[in-house]
């Protein structure tokens, strides 16, 4: 890897991506299409993982809180905090980096090796803008909704599974998820989501756009997209956490 080369080329690509759209109506149609591809099709995996993770966090919290000095509503409180602060914004975005990131890199990479991007360029289309901007815009628009759904399902998954497993009572859990709630934490979570949405789509598009070779290279681009998106998500997660929560 040549980090400065890639960094420079990434920012030059972003310059083209964020330039004025050539035809707003065509871009808008693409954004709607990408909202479906990136967002709606990710809903089942996000829902399944969130419900089960909510249940697991609740049962683990109940298992850990054995001291009589810890009130039982701490189980609901812990589940809410874990889901709102870290699981939904970060872990779900890491999962989406795998699903959405590899999809974007392989789609654009395949277009590159089959000369579809060359065809766009020769027509006079800003291929970077046409292909990448709608993906970034769609992800930034739809990810907060996906994560909100994940938060909701995670907390209620914790409720149903926790109560069903006898880890806590319904009253204690509901009391716990309402206790000491600070809306500032939601600003923090959704800021992370917006940054991660941009990272996943732009980094994956970068690796796809500069694919050179054949099917093997498309696979490599796809892998690189997931690896580097995940690393950047963790890095920016740490930076944002320090900025928002470190008093």
């Amino acid at each position, binding site marked *: 890897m040549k980090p400065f080369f890639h960094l420079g080329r990434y920012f030059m690509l972003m310059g083209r991506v964020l330039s004025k759209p050539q035809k707003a109506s*065509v871009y808008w149609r693409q954004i709607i299409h990408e909202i479906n591809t990136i967002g709606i099709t990710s809903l089942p995996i996000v829902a399944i993982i969130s419900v089960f993770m909510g249940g697991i966090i609740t049962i683990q919290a109940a298992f850990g809180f054995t001291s009589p000095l810890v009130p039982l509503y701490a189980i609901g409180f812990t589940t809410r905090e874990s889901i709102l602060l870290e699981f939904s914004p970060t872990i779900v975005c890491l999962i989406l980096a795998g699903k959405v990131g590899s999809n974007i890199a392989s789609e654009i990479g395949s277009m590159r090796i089959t*000369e579809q991007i060359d065809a766009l360029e020769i*027509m006079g289309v800003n291929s970077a803008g046409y292909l990448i901007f709608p993906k970034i815009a769609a992800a930034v628009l739809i990810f907060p909704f996906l994560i909100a759904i994940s938060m909701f399902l995670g907390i209620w998954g914790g409720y149903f599974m926790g109560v069903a497993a006898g880890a806590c009572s319904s009253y204690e859990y509901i009391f716990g998820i309402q206790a000491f709630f600070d809306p500032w934490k939601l600003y923090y979570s959704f800021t992370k989501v917006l940054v991660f949405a941009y990272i996943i789509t732009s980094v994956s598009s970068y690796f796809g756009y500069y694919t050179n070779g054949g099917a093997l290279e498309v696979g490599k681009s796809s892998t690189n997209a997931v690896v580097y998106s995940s690393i950047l998500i963790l890095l920016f997660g740490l930076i944002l956490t320090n900025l928002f929560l470190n008093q």
Partner: protein
Amino acid sequence: MIEIKNLNKTFGDRHVVKDVSFNFHPGKTNLIIGESGCGKTTILKLMVGLHQLDGGQILYDGRDFPVLPPAGKQEIRQQIGMLFQAGALFDSQTVEENVRFPLDMFTNLSRAEKDDRVNFCLAKVKLEGRNHLYPAELSGGMKKRAALARAIANNPKYLFCDEPNSGLDPKTSIIIDTLIKDLTEEFNMTTIIITHDMNSVVEIGENIMFIYKGENWWTGNKKNILQRSNEELFNFVFASDFMKSIFSAANENAKHSFKP
């Protein structure tokens, strides 16, 4: 008219295109022929701006394309239609959406006008009624025809075709060649075709440049390409011993028939 003057291109230490100059005639089918790896496709990619030029000029109606500002390049590119070797149709779009794409991007036509234009182009390439098929559902010849329909959708002034017959049987190749020639005449385009298919050369070669080891080795047309005027060209045109024997036999017959 398109003129290229002293084109040069190197990849690392390989000098792929060496001082190539040529005039492409408007309203004609201009062919760039030569062996695989001789630099034909590189010349075409230089002409449309997919490769950076190392030296020379590419003049579209007198405007030097490589040194134009981005807006000027875009203006010229919008006058170019290109048929890629493998079609390069957008996989996620139907035939109709592929053909409509340049109209959506660069025109303000109404939906009905675009539909009319799409159907007109599909009729020209004999793909009526295939509007809703995806590229994966088309045969090789149909893909080329769909790509040709997309290339002419925006009424281009220049049509570039990169090996339009590759992977096609001889009969389908002739259909594609005839289609390109007819469209060139009908729309008065400057058509540039990269090929090493000899059927195409003798069928539609109105203005031919033979590239040998990156150089412009011979220029002419389909009438004089079959004369033994150049050894390398002769070896390219009559590549097999069988074809050479046919050429010799034909020459012998001609000599006898012209004996006084």
